[in-house]
Structures are given as structure tokens and as C-alpha cells.
């Protein structure tokens, strides 16, 4: 049924406000579970849901009103202390929130779908009548947690009772251990509406941006200056044409103008870039919820700590890092962290720690996911890789520790013998690597057996404008993203070695495979053979390759232009840019280069 709403503006306002409230709500609810006695937090949650209810009833969204109304009632009882907050109640409330998100997403999509809401409402209703004196009673009545945030629930029924007791968090202390319910009942429970999660994700709006008024004002100032400089330029041109200014004066004035122009435009560029920046919090705030439900499913105790969520990065990057991060978090929780019993046996604290941190470093952002779990067992990883036929024994014997860590990124790799819902299909880490590569990012693993592991992602701040190194290859100019450039050196070609047909260079303690750009790009030789050439060492994800070029031209900030659909998949080329003289220069794809080099050296 299409939405019948006369006032489109009103509807948009409602959607924007509701979306924001709901995003905050998830966060608050998780926080509430940890600090259930915080009245301020409780009130805020209550107010949010109340606002959503009020607005939706005003606009006549009946389904939404019914769900929010019941949720509000439950929250009201919690607020008044008539009901003690338990994980079970929290599950139901979270499920209701998910449902609300789905409904709002429907409205946003322009179609009201007649969804089944009674199931969730029926779960809420018992919470309204139950007496605080008998907290055990409701727990038995409420269907088991639905883990709506994850797509796993039905299969984890068997170990559930045990997990439940392990999960009793301090606020739930009032609840007697009678809470564990028979597993069969749990099995009867239908799978939670999967739309909940999806709808929640879709709520993040990518079409409109909220910009700080201050930033807009700054921008306007910059534009004002730009207009002044333009006028100055027109004036200079007129003076020159009209003969009122001689060449010497003109060139002096023009030089000044060029300097100011470059200053203003780079400021302007920064401002616009800043407007595209959003805090990484946007992605991070989904995680407490995911970690919570994962921890319950896995029977683990996890303390998620988030740092640097205010770190800003470009929208384009934010949109892309969500998936890889979820994979890494799942991975850390499933493979990294041990169960509470194992942890105690290993002499660690019962609760595992998962640290998610973001920080700026120069022109890139570094996101790290660190756990204090069992770490990567390289022996086991190596054995598994051989078992799966991904590498040979000889290859393994020649591997450094870092290379062994990298094995986990191979497609098809998994240390699990059986695929579970969470992991074990051997796609996860491959996906992570592919996504990070797509963003021109680097990934690094630090791990110590028994102490935990850390995955460090280094991502560019933006994908629209990049710092690049311009190089000349036999007369043609190419641009290499500076983020991937590790170093440049000038070497004598006689220092090259050839191993199995692959040219390599001994660089300090490392043997660097070389790629001749002129060969890859079929550039015609136009210079006399010169013994000296330049090597640009690039790294993508975890590999290093040296590109052989004729000359280094310089460093320049370039705006990336797509080559269009028609030339989208040219090997070794990531895009193009326009140089100062109006010519087009192609941007080298470091990922393609490194993989190309890998393929060539695979023969070793």
C-alpha cells in the first residue's frame, strides 16, 4: 500500500528524526544493560520511543504506533522500577526496536508492507502484567532471546541454558538461576525476522548530509575569497590587453595571484572534504549490538572497548569499511577469544577484551581490532593450508611468520573443520582483504600465540582526491597513489638479479620482486637504454613490489576521474586524472601491480 501522506515535508522530517532516534536508541539500550540504574539513560530511551510513537500516531502509521506503544509501556515500567531489567527483557525490547526499524524502513521505501507484528507484541505483553515480586515467572514465559541482531539463532539451542547462566550480568542478579528454560521450547521458536537486521542497516541515509552550520559559513567565506581572486585575475588580464601593464609587472602580479589562488583553492578543498567527512562512530555504533548477540551465541564473555569513534573519514570510505570490520570482529570473537572456562584455565581473566580503535595518522586512518584471545597458531594455520591444498609443504617451509599470517587471507582458507553460522566457510577473511584492497588500504596482522592478535587496517581518508607520485615511463606520465608508495630509490640496473625469470632487487634484508611498467603497459622505448632507473616500492595489503620507472616527476594532489564503464576493468589501471596542462594521466592500480607481480613470481 503506497503511503498516503499529504505533506511530504512532514514525512521527510519524521523519517530523518526517527532514523536518528533509533540509531541512538540501540546504543543506549546496550549501555543500559551495563548500567541499568542510570535514570538519565533510562529516561532518554523512554523519551526516544515516546517521540517516535507520538510522531507516527500523528502521521497515522498504525503498525508503528502499536509496536512503539507496547514498547513504551514496558520501558515505562522499567523506568518506574516495577520491572527489573534482565537480558531476556532486553532481548525483547531490542527485537521490538528492530521491528520499529523495519517498519520505518518500509515507510522510507514508500510502501507500507503489512508485516506480522503480533509476535513481537505478544512478547511484550507479558512484561506489562508481571509482578516485580516474581521475576522468575516472566522469564519462563518469554520466548528465548531472538538474537535478532545476528542471523544465527536456531542452531545454538543446545548449549543455551549454560550460556544463559554465564550471561547473567550483574544487573540481572535479582533473577534466580531458574531462568534457563528447556531447550526444546527454544527449538520451537521460529527464526527471527531477518528483515530486522537488514532494515536497520538500510536506515542509514546516504542521500542527504547534515553539515555543521559553522562549516558552511567557512565554506562561504572561502568562496568569497575565490571570487575576489577571480576578479583580480580578470583585472590583470584587462590591464595586459589594454597595455596599461607591462610584462614584468604582469608576471609579478600574476605570480602573486597564482599563489593566493592555490592557497584559497586548497583551503576550499579541505572544507569540502571536511563536509564529506563523517565520524567513524557511524560504523562503530553498530558493533556493541553485534558483539552482544555474538557473545551470547558463542557462550563467551566479551568486554568491547571502543576508542576514537570521533575520528572522521570520508563517507565513501565509511560506507565500505562496515563489512570488513564486522568480519574481523566475528573472527576475533569466534577464533580469537576463548570461552570463559578456557580463559581461566589459561590464567587469564574470565572476560575477554576486544578493543576497537580508530586514529588519524597523516593522510590515513588506522583502525585496529585487538583481542586478548589465543592468538594465531601459525603451525595450525600452516597445516590447514596444506590440508586444503592451498600451498605445498615446500612453500610452507620457506615462509616467514608474516607470510604465515597472510595465509588466513587466502580464499577457501578456514581452520574450522565444520562451517558454522558464524565462520568456517573460508570466505570471511578473503572478503576483508578484497574490500580493504578496493579502498587502497593496507592490512597488517600482529599476533602472539596465547596473548591475542591485532588486525591493523590503514585506510586512505578519502577516495576522491589523493596524493600521488607522478612518474615517467619512457615518455608517458603515470600517477601512483602515494598512500601505497613506501619508498623510492635510484638504482643501477646492473644490480638487478634474476630468480626464475623474475627480476628482483636486494633491498636491505628483503628480496623485492620488480615489475617493469613499460612492459606491463607496452610502452614503446623512446629513450636510449640508461643503466640508472628509479624504483618505486609499493605495498598493497601485505605485499611489496618494486615498480621500475624511467624518471620521477613529482608529487601532486590529484582528483580521481573514472575511466567510465567502457574502460572500467583495464588491468593495472585504477582510474585517471587530469594534469595541470590538461592532459590525462592514468593512475596505476597498486593492487593490480602487486598481484601481477605475485603471479609472475609464483613460478619460483
Amino acid at each position, binding site marked *: 500500500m503506497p503511503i498516503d501522506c499529504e505533506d511530504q515535508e512532514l514525512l521527510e522530517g519524521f523519517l530523518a528524526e526517527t532514523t536518528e532516534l533509533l540509531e541512538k536508541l540501540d546504543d543506549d539500550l546496550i549501555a543500559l544493560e551495563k548500567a541499568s540504574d542510570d535514570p538519565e539513560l533510562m529516561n532518554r530511551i523512554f523519551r526516544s520511543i515516546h517521540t517516535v510513537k507520538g510522531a507516527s500516531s500523528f502521521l497515522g502509521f498504525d503498525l508503528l504506533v502499536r509496536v512503539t506503544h507496547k514498547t513504551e509501556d514496558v520501558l515505562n515500567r522499567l523506568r518506574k522500577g516495577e520491572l527489573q531489567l534482565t537480558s531476556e527483557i532486553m532481548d525483547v525490547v531490542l527485537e521490538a526496536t528492530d521491528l520499529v526499524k523495519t517498519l520505518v524502513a518500509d515507510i522510507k521505501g514508500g510502501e507500507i508492507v503489512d508485516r506480522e507484528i503480533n509476535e513481537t507484541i505478544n512478547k511484550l505483553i507479558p512484561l506489562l502484567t508481571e509482578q516485580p515480586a516474581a521475576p522468575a515467572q516472566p522469564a519462563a514465559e518469554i520466548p528465548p532471546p531472538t538474537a535478532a541482531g545476528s542471523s544465527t539463532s536456531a542452531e545454538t539451542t543446545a548449549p543455551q541454558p549454560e550460556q544463559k547462566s554465564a550471561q547473567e550480568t550483574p544487573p540481572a542478579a535479582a533473577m534466580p538461576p531458574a531462568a534457563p528454560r528447556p531447550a526444546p521450547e527454544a527449538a520451537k521458536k521460529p527464526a527471527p525476522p531477518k528483515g530486522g537486521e537488514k532494515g536497520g542497516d538500510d536506515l542509514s541515509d546516504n542521500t542527504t548530509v547534515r553539515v555543521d552550520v559553522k562549516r558552511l559559513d567557512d565554506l562561504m567565506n572561502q568562496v568569497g575569497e575565490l571570487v575576489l581572486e577571480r576578479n583580480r585575475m580578470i583585472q590583470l588580464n584587462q590591464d595586459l590587453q589594454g597595455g596599461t601593464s607591462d610584462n614584468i609587472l604582469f608576471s609579478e602580479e600574476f605570480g602573486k595571484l597564482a599563489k593566493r589562488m592555490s592557497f584559497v583553492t586548497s583551503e576550499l578543498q579541505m572544507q569540502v572534504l571536511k563536509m564529506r567527512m563523517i565520524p567513524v562512530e557511524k560504523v562503530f555504533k553498530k558493533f556493541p549490538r553485534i558483539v552482544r548477540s555474538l557473545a551470547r551465541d558463542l557462550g563467551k564473555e566479551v568486554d568491547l572497548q571502543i576508542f576514537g569513534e570521533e575520528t572522521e573519514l570520508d563517507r565513501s570510505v565509511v560506507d565500505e569499511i562496515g563489512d570488513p570490520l564486522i568480519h574481523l570482529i566475528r573472527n576475533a570473537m569466534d577464533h580469537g577469544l576463548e570461552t570463559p572456562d578456557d580463559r581461566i584455565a589459561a590464567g587469564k581473566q574470565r572476560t575477554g577484551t576486544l578493543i576497537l580503535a580508530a586514529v588519524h595518522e597523516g593522510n590515513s586512518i588506522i583502525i585496529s581490532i585487538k583481542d586478548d584471545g589465543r592468538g594465531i597458531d601459525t603451525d595450525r594455520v600452516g597445516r590447514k593450508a596444506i590440508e586444503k591444498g592451498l600451498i605445498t609443504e615446500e612453500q610452507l617451509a620457506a615462509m616467514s611468520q608474516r607470510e604465515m599470517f597472510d595465509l588466513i587471507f587466502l580464499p577457501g582458507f578456514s581452520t574450522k573443520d565444520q562451517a558454522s553460522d558464524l565462520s568456517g566457510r573460508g570466505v570471511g577473511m578473503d572478503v576483508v582483504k578484497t574490500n580493504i584492497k578496493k579502498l587502497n588500504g593496507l592490512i597488517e596482522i600482529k599476533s602472539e600465540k596465547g596473548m591475542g592478535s591485532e588486525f591493523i587496517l590503514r585506510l586512505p581518508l578519502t577516495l576522491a582526491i589523493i596524493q600521488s607520485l607522478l612518474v615517467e615511463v619512457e615518455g*608517458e606520465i603515470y600517477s601512483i597513489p602515494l598512500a601505497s608508495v613506501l619508498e623510492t630509490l635510484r638504482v643501477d640496473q646492473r644490480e638487478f638479479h634474476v630468480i626464475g625469470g623474475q627480476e628482483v632487487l636486494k633491498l636491505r634484508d628483503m628480496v623485492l620482486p620488480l615489475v617493469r611498467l613499460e612492459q*606491463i*603497459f*607496452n*610502452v614503446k622505448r623512446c629513450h636510449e637504454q640508461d643503466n640508472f632507473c628509479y624504483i618505486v616500492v609499493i605495498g598493497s595489503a601485505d605485499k611489496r613490489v618494486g615498480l621500475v620507472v624511467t624518471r620521477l616527476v613529482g608529487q601532486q594532489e590529484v582528483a580521481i*576521474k*573514472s*575511466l*567510465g*564503464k*567502457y*574502460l*572500467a*576493468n*583495464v*588491468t*593495472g*589501471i585504477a582510474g*585517471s586524472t*587530469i594534469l595541470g596542462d*590538461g*592532459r*590525462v*594521466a*592514468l593512475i596505476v592500480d597498486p593492487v593490480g601491480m602487486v598481484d601481477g607481480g605475485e603471479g609472475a613470481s609464483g613460478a619460483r
Partner: protein
Amino acid sequence: MSNALVPMNANEARTGDHGELIQLVSFSLDNEEYGVDVLKVREIIRMPSITRVPNTPHYVEGVINLRGKVIPIINMRRRFGLCELEYDKQTRIMVMDVEGELMGFIVDAVSEVIRISSSEIQPSPAVVTSGIDQECIAGVINQAERLLVLLDLQKMFSQDERQLFGNL
């Protein structure tokens, strides 16, 4: 008839019983005259400096900067397997809209915009000279003193070809 040919607006469209009026841009290539629908042609420019793109089919000349947009350039002579010719004063790039994307085509010369009625378009003969792929010929126009080959560029860069490109 190909839907690449867009009829003129309603008043003009009915010119007696000659069918709809169509405007074509005609260009020459190896002494043959070709026509493409005028509405698909965005602009006609002289040869700018072209940046070669490696690892592409031989008929992709490279890319150019068209007022801040980077667009691919196709050498029509090479595309049609004709012998190559030095670029001269007449050489032009026709910038066209191919399935929503701009592309440039190098042709020997662009001559004029002509009006014909759709009834003048004949299906292409079974065998066509000069090795041009059959499927991108939308028809021929046989007027008193001229023979005009009507091209459908949309078809020339059809799905298969793009796919092929993707795998290169």
C-alpha cells in the same frame, strides 16, 4: 527499425506519407559516407592530445580530457578494420552518447546534418563491403547521388563487447 532513431517532434513528424523525419549527422570514413542519429551526437571536436591506455583493444585510441571529464576514444578506422591514415585537418572526434556514457569516435571528416524520412531507410544488403560488422548497421539510405550507411553505435558496443572488455 532501431530505436536509436528518434523521431522529430509531432508536428514535423508527419510529412505526408513519407514516414517520420529523421536528422542524421553524416561523416566519412575511407570514402564511404555514414550517418548517425543527431540526438546521439553531443559535440564534434578536433583532435586533442590523447593519452594511450594500455591493455585495451587496438581500436581504443586512448582517453582525452573533455572539459574535466575523461572519455574513451575509439579509432573508427581500426574498429572497422580499414587501413590507417595520418590525422589531418579534417580529422574529427565525434563525441557521442552511448548508453548513457560519453565516448569519442575518430572519423576522417564530418560533413553535414541531413534530414531524411524514415521510409527512405532500406534494410542493409546481405553482404556489406569494407568489413564493417553487420549488426551495427541499422540500414542504408540510397538517395539519387549518395549512399549513406546508417550506424547504430549502441549495438556496436553491445553487452557482449563490454563483457569482453571487462575480461581483458
